[in-house]
């Protein structure tokens, strides 16, 4: 069922932008998306702004200097899924007929926080005992490797692929190619994850203009349709749960496939939440891009890389495009739209017709992840 159209997209380059304010970064992405859509300031009915560490009224702070306040502005916090959750609100608001054109922003400036691992909620039990995001993924990785026979070299192959794509994306934080040996020799962050298997800290923003199909036609854009926009949260378990798979991603993507009336085989290109290399392997399986336990075989065959059967993260993913937390879900949509319009340059997936984006995360005790959003877009 078509929910809405994406009439325009824009983003900043991702990376460390210490000399700019978060508001400035957000404005750049928004102005780019509005120009791409050919929509003026008074053509925007509402704004949803996703950010996890942007602070109070981040949307208003960005829109103020553009003279665009006055309309409804809703700020959305959902950890790594903040931007994707903001997009979902916009898609359903358009579908409900409440608005014809909505600007969705994802924005983050992580360099404001200093370096190191992301600050987590101090009331959380595991955080008090020393858990950090890389360890959350590292512990899952170890269990996954134990159960499937995948090795650290497979994780390294994911990192190498991410860099191959990052080198083709002028907006990526990392645009250098690396080898498996580089990854294996890199500094350990949380065993078995080395530095290149972990996404970087950075700044950036992305924006999309969500419209009704009618408005998209009026704007004369080559519109991309949103066929599914699904958000779920993790189930709380005090007991045992399978950490070698992602129940949350399986559940969310199943709902998205059903809503879009497609299956995993129909996906031409996917942007998935590779916060850590091991997660990408697990998500191949959870999204149904390969069978259970065959994530390692998928990267070995090159299925998810350039020229492969179902390229994953042609943007470079979180690993190389970068992961300014709240911006990521919207940046995935920007990449998906470029792919579907055939405007993705050196990293273009030939003939891409169906794009899936998957954004999940948020460290919280007892949950697979805090939130997960899956979108299906078609040309």
């Amino acid at each position, binding site marked *: 069922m078509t929910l809405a159209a994406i009439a325009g997209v824009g983003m900043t380059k991702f990376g460390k932008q210490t000399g700019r304010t978060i508001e400035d970064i957000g404005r750049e992405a928004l102005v780019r998306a509005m120009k791409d859509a050919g929509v003026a300031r008074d053509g925007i009915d509402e704004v949803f702004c996703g950010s996890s560490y942007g602070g109070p009224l981040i949307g208003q702070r960005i829109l103020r200097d553009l003279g665009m306040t006055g309309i409804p502005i809703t700020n959305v916090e959902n950890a790594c899924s903040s931007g994707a959750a903001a997009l979902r609100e916009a898609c359903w608001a358009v579908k409900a007929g409440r608005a014809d054109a909505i600007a969705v922003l994802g924005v983050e400036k992580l360099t404001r926080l200093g370096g*190191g691992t992301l600050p987590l909620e101090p009331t959380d039990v595991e955080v*008090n005992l020393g858990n950090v995001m890389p360890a959350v993924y590292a*512990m*899952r990785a170890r269990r996954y490797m134990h159960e499937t026979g995948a090795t650290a070299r497979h994780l390294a192959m994911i990192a190498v692929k991410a860099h191959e794509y990052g080198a083709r994306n002028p907006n990526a934080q990392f645009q250098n190619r690396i080898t498996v040996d580089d990854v294996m020799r890199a500094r350990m*962050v*949380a065993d078995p994850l080395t530095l290149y298997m972990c996404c970087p800290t950075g700044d950036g923003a992305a924006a999309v203009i969500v419209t009704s199909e009618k408005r998209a036609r009026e704007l004369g854009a080559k519109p991309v349709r949103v066929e599914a926009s699904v958000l779920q949260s993790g189930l*709380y378990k*005090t*007991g*045992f749960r399978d950490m070698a798979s992602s129940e949350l991603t399986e559940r969310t993507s199943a709902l998205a496939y059903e809503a879009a009336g497609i299956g995993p085989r129909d996906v031409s290109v996917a942007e998935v939440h590779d916060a850590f290399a091991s997660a990408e392997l697990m998500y191949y399986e959870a999204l149904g891009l390969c069978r259970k336990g065959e994530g390692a075989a998928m990267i070995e065959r090159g299925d998810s890389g350039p020229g492969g059967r179902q390229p994953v993260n042609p943007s470079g993913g979180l690993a190389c495009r970068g992961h300014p937390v709240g911006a990521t879900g919207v940046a995935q949509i920007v990449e998906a739209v470029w792919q579907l319009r055939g405007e993705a340059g050196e990293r273009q997936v030939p003939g891409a017709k169906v794009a899936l984006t998957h954004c999940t995360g948020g460290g919280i005790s007892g949950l697979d992840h805090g939130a997960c959003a899956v979108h299906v877009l078609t040309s």
Partner: protein
Amino acid sequence: MNGGTEYFPASRPWTEEGGAVRLHGSKCAHCGVAAFPPHPSCPACGAEGSQDTVQLSPVGTLYTFSEIHIAPKGFVTPYAVGYVDLPEGVRLFGQIETPAADLRLGQQVAVTLGPVRADASGRMVISYKFKGLP
């Protein structure tokens, strides 16, 4: 450093008997699901005010682990962490005193007490941890 200690959780939900540390969890009188730290209501069935206090087993099974090399202020790196499954059906996260190189999935680990980090004023925080059993 002022040498004092604090505990996490501050309520110190554990007892020590002859070297064995037993954590105090909650167990739902309605559906039987156990939890740690103790919950005021049941996260599984939603029952309120029906949580019994239970002493959890002092030994569990290591489900998975990692060794952390980059950590927030107050933690001394590297340190091993893991998830430990107790027979009552509770999975706990915690630091492990045994070096990661000596750990393996599925091995038995014992609950113990010890420092986990320093707080903002430099005081050591004592909490439950694990140690590998031979």
